[in-house]
């Protein structure tokens, strides 16, 4: 399981988990779950185009994910309807399927990009993963307080001179980078699970924002390591374990809390 040729997979997966755990915490706090759902979809055709034109996958992913941010902001500004949003996302996936089909490696690539292929990580993937995996947490940590304050109340943030639009764009861009980083490992459809499962569990389990952020990262690491190990042992796809473990992480603390009501007074709901 820890053979040298798998070392790359462990390193990249760990970097993905750290970035996703950080980004996921803010996704949950800032209630940006739609963006966390949409940005991996937007990144998907980028990876497909990279395959078609023979470019590095990570570049295609990053460019397309950042393009997805522009699309999201456009959708938000114009107050587009749900139907328009859903259609655009689906069209992006269809575009990705076209690129993959034209690239001639349709069948394998579709599976890899939708559900991830963690053991396909090669030595060339480590450097870009290292850059993104360190940049994402670094930016999020340095913006920790403004990100949190503007999540609590845009007005309170504005009083303190924080430009909420700027913060939003910054956050979505970092989220896009995190999604681009995670996509080859978890697949476009399961990035959301890796980001929000650990984070939503952490937010239930502890009350302090710093502790919740740290716990979110720790749980994301635990999740991805488990998925990797189980996948290696069973030779089943890691995406299956990622999806199931994330849902378990989400449910477990909620069931625990319902089963054992807290002693303190509930206050206003």
């Amino acid at each position, binding site marked *: 399981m820890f053979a040298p040729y798998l070392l790359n997979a462990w390193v990249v997966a760990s970097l993905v988990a750290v970035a996703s755990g950080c980004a996921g915490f803010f996704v*949950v*706090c800032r*209630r940006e779950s739609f963006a966390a759902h949409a940005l991996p979809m937007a990144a998907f055709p980028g990876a497909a185009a990279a395959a078609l034109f023979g470019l590095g996958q990570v570049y295609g992913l990053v460019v397309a994910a950042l393009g997805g941010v522009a699309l999201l902001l456009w959708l938000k500004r114009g107050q587009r309807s749900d139907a328009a949003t859903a259609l655009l996302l689906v069209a992006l996936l269809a575009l990705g399927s076209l690129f993959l089909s034209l690239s001639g490696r349709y069948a394998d690539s579709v599976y890899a990009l939708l559900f991830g292929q963690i053991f396909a990580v090669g030595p060339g993937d480590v450097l870009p993963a290292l850059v993104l995996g360190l940049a994402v947490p670094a930016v999020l*940590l*340095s*913006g*920790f*307080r*403004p990100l*949190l*304050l503007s*999540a*609590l*109340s845009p*007005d*309170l*943030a*504005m*009083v*303190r*001179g*924080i430009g909420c639009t700027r913060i939003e764009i910054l956050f979505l861009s970092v989220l896009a980078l995190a999604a681009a980083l995670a996509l080859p490992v978890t697949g476009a459809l399961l990035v959301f699970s890796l980001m929000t499962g650990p984070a*939503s569990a*952490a*937010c*239930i389990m*502890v*009350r*302090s*924002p710093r*502790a*919740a952020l740290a716990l979110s990262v720790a749980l994301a690491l635990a999740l991805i390591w488990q998925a990797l190990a189980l996948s290696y042992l069973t030779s089943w796809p890691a995406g299956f374990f990622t999806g199931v473990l994330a849902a378990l992480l989400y449910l477990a603390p909620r069931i625990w809390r319902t089963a054992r009501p807290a002693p*303190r007074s*509930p*206050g*206003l*709901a």
Partner: protein
Amino acid sequence: MSLTVTNLTVRYGGREVLRDVGFALEPGAFCGLIGANGSGKTTLLRTILGFETPSAGRVERDGTVGYVPQKLQIAADMPVRARDLVALGLDGHRLGFSWPSAGRRRRVEEMLASVDALAFADQRVGELSGGQLQRVLIAHALVSGPKLLLLDEPLANLDLRAAAEIVALLKRVAGQGVTVLISAHDMNPLLGAMDRLVYLANGRAASGRTEQVVRTEVLSELYGYHIDVIRVHGRILVVAGNAEAHHHHDHDHVAAIP
């Protein structure tokens, strides 16, 4: 003066929301901003905060401003305790990851104590009751030491006792030299505490000292129907009289009260 508003006019898409509004508040004033829903209270507060650009007139503030929004729209599960929210009032705009420091923690602790919020300092913000949340929001606004405190309908949705406690707390704050401007649609909870009053109707304002404005003839003129000012047990109470008994006045004729 810690806040001077002069000839302020604000338009939204051609409609005048505020017209020629003017008043001034000296340090330590406790001023109620009274008006029905939709009368322009929130717009006035937002213009004072600099969120809206006036089409005419100006706002002069002396020193920094603290703001208490009407509510937070957050999930109950959000991992932010009352003390975290207060700490964000101290340095929420700063970049960089902050390591806990003793001085910062002491400052937050003192602030929580001064608004009687220590008992629920470690509860999640989303789980606080309405009155508890208002205390924490006030602490958040005050912890950076502003000269002016603006509150948007802090008493809405509070029961009588919680409202009275918040007003008493704000009176204490004003006593320490902070100018308090508080918007409310019902002036009764504020009558014992406020020394100044700005009344908004249809975008126009009338202002004056409380004892000048809160009189039957003045209020009846402002509201456009008969208002009784009742004194009971040394306190004042404002109640609407028989609406049929008094002709409706045009709100546009509200005059500034010296």
